[in-house]
């Protein structure tokens, strides 16, 4: 197991959001977290990166990471594409990407990765010297994914990458995510409202309801589950 979460509780002040979540993730696999608004999906991702107060156990590559700082967790190889994209608006596209590789010391590899990322997203190369705040929503989403890739992560946490994107763009982005997963062997933990797209991409999925895992299984199985179909796929 690359990531193992057990008995995870989290709260924002007095508001408790997660009530003991358990799940795991194999190296190189894609896992989706599904659920309604407010179920605790984003909080789960934030909990892994120590951005909320947590109780429970989180292991990454066998090592406990709960209680460590956000910076240290990033340095272990967990790249978080946050809710709202987290763009450095006043910096250029390329500066955003260079920040993604801030912790890496090998300049040659970083330069090669920059070109590789531009290969996945040629639009970003065209806009490399442009202020990131002037990019469109779709381009900023590509930038967020690319910035995470620049960390050369073992695990990417993707928080609603489809949010606010046109359907065609969503399809394109998911194709690229699939390609990245296949080529770079990066594991992905994907939080999505768009359950159909997420289940197509993922190997496994967990359905989260009010801070608990309601259902878990292979993505194909969940797609056939009647409850999931009615509630999240709409047919």
């Amino acid at each position, binding site marked *: 197991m690359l990531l193992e979460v057990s008995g995870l509780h989290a709260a924002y002040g007095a508001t408790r959001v997660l009530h003991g979540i358990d799940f795991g993730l194999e190296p190189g696999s894609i896992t989706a977290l599904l659920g309604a608004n407010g179920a605790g999906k984003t909080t789960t991702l934030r909990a892994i*990166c120590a*951005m909320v107060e947590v109780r429970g156990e989180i292991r990454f590559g066998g090592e406990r990471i709960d209680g460590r*700082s*956000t*910076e240290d967790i*990033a*340095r272990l190889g967990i*790249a*978080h594409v*946050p809710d709202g994209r*987290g*763009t*450095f*608006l*006043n*910096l250029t596209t390329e*500066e955003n990407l*260079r*920040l*993604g590789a*801030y*912790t890496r010391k090998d300049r040659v590899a970083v330069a090669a990765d920059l070109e590789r990322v531009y290969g996945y997203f040629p639009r970003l190369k065209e806009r490399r010297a442009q202020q990131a705040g002037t990019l469109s929503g779709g381009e900023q989403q590509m930038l967020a994914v690319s*910035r995470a890739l620049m*960390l050369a992560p073992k695990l990417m946490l993707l928080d609603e990458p489809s949010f606010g994107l046109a359907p065609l763009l969503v399809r394109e982005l998911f194709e690229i995510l699939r390609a990245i997963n296949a080529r770079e062997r990066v594991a992905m933990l994907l939080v999505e409202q768009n359950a159909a797209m997420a289940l197509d991409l993922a190997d496994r999925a967990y359905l989260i309801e009010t801070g608990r895992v309601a259902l878990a299984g292979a993505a194909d199985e969940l797609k056939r589950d009647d409850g999931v179909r009615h509630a999240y796929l709409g047919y």
Partner: protein
Amino acid sequence: MDALLHQVLAGLATGGIYASLALALVMIYHATHLVNFAQGEMAMFTTYIAWSLINAGMPYWPAFLLTVGIAFILGIFIERIVIRPVENAPVLGVVVVFIGLLVILNSVAGWIYTYTIKSFPSPFPPQPVLGIHYLSAHELGAIGVTLAVLALLYAFFRFTPLGLAMRAAAQNPESSRLVGIRVGWMLALGWGLAAAVGAVAGMMVAPIVYLDPNMMGGILLYAFAAALLGGIDSPGGAVLGGFAVGVLENVLGAFVIGNELKLAVALVLIVGVLLVKPSGFFGRVYVTRV
């Protein structure tokens, strides 16, 4: 005409000093969104350290560099020890801490060095150089030193990974943590740099205004005016503002309102900018959805 040219050039010399201090203010503002009222006293205190070093027999330039280094470390210490604990405190709380810092530094300097005015050496020759008679060598040198500091800072923030990380940390702390930047240290480093820049400003202005614990009061006011004029969140604006305030203060003081009312220029500028163009000439206008 000659007199005017002289006043303008002399204004550029003091303006460079205001620009440095204004830049220090902007750097802290970027990181904390607050104006550091103690910036001037920090500069004053480090200038006394330089005075001690020089009086102990150290040649000027080594003393200068050592002072800049001490100021840098002092700035980091102040951030770690005094500012960090009030990181999440309400604005007024932090302002009170800044004012407390101001009073403490002022009193400690007075206690150690007394309030008697001391002269501070200039590294530049007393007679005019390069055949320029409008400016003393010190004024010319101060402009040169200021410009060198500004160029170094620009290169640091623009071209080094650490400078980029510091800009990122000030702008978007959460995203910065997610890429592994130690945001707390970046803020401390910002304080260190601001203190170092302030130290240079203090050492450059001390030969002109003489060394005493209250020497930076008026200068900090001009630096405020400069930072506001350029836009409190714009480093380039603060620098231009500094030069503009220096020239304005000198020319108005010499020809219009007289030297006694010079400091009023700064106050009028501050109030004027806040009334007419609160974001300054190069600042960002923030729009908030409510």
